[in-house]
């Protein structure tokens, strides 16, 4: 009984530590995206790390983890942008809901293909939603050219590759750090 209480307390601590680590990682990701990625050339500025990481969190972990990650990256993005509060985080929430619907009712498994399809759908929704939200809420000067395929398709392609890279990295990490006592010796 006492051992169970101690175990529960330790699990709570580990849980809080993981959440804190996730928040720090989210802040670092946002800084990296705004400060470095967007300034790079050769199409690297098309990469959207916050969005791809959100889709990855949904596909690789769970909806709960994805919601937490959404708040962790959405809030810094909201405060660092000059749009009405709620545009960024609301858009990401809508994308997450659509992805969850697709995952549950159409793409039923969580394979690499699922991740890539969800990434493509998410990037398309992000571009369309951001354009629409920006236009409706700020009333700024936006043209239909901002939505042209010449601009959106390269972004989809670049984030496609990013998602694939993230998957490979995750698989390599899991493989490398697998607990030894769980390996089967032939």
């Amino acid at each position, binding site marked *: 009984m006492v051992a169970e209480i101690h175990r529960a307390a330790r699990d709570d601590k580990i849980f809080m530590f993981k959440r804190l680590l996730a928040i720090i990682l989210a802040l*670092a990701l946002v800084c990296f995206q705004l*400060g*470095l990625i967007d*300034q790079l050339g050769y199409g690297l500025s098309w990469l959207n790390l916050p969005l791809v990481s959100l889709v990855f969190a949904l596909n690789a972990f769970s*909806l709960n983890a994805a919601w937490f990650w959404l708040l962790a990256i959405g809030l*810094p993005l909201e405060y*660092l*942008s000059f749009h009405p509060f709620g545009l960024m985080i609301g858009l990401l929430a809508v994308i997450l809901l659509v992805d969850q619907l697709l995952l549950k009712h159409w793409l039923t498994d969580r394979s690499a293909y699922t991740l890539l399809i969800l990434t493509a759908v998410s990037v398309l929704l992000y571009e369309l939603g951001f354009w629409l939200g920006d236009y409706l809420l700020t009333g700024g000067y936006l043209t239909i050219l901002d939505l042209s395929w010449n601009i959106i398709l390269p972004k989809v392609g670049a984030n496609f590759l990013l998602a694939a890279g993230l998957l490979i990295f995750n698989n390599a990490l899991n493989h490398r750090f697998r607990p030894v006592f769980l390996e089967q010796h032939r």
Partner: protein
Amino acid sequence: MQLINKKKSVLHYKKTIITLVVVFLLAIFSWAGWLSFANQAIVWLTRPVVGWLYQTSPSGSYNNQTSRAVLLGLLKNKDDQLTKLAVDEAKLNSLQTENESLRQYLKFNQSQSAHLVLANVIYRDFLSATSWQNNELVIDQGKNASLVTGQAVVSQAGAIIGCVGQVRDASAQVYLITNQNCRLAAAINNETQTSGIAQGDLGLTVKLNFIPQTEKLSVGQLVVSSGLTASVPAGLPIGRIVQINQENNGLWQDAIVEPLDNLDRLLVVGVLIK
């Protein structure tokens, strides 16, 4: 088993709804201004890192590759322009001296001159629907440095590169002059000081609109701010005319203006506060 699955899905829906409610409440509190401490905390935490990453990023270096012959040609053109500008500067200096002495004679009251606030560029416009145009900046000065919307932003050389958009406590958005949201009252340095409205065009150039058809323009003429825009002093260079568009049946003609400064690699800018 079915009962367990049902409980799990109900739990998922509950968490989804709770998260959406939290997001909605955050939006309400932010609108009411109750979350300004969180805003300041996040900006305080992220701004040094983002600013350092921006300053050290190789922005612009991949986009300017060209051949040696082209560069030599450009260099020679710049040398010729420098010589011409030196001559113009000498003339302007003598005119300025004469102007000041005449004003003193007439006891003319001069309006208070603008002072410059320097600001570091923190990042460019990832968080924008027009991010493909690459024509918005965020700087690290805001309301605490008396910045307001519409003020002119100048480069180190003194040419206008944009205007201030939204302003927060410690940061501000800058629309570059190639951004459609930046509109300035401009005048052409010709005999009649033709005036028009300079507005960004698709993130690439500046378009000078509403020029009467009767006005004579020529390629190469300098376009400056006319002073008719509130909070933008007169006489600040914007660019040079590179193309003139005239329609026979139209009331107005317009001109394409090329900015004087390179807008790709901006690290430090100045905001003119009148």
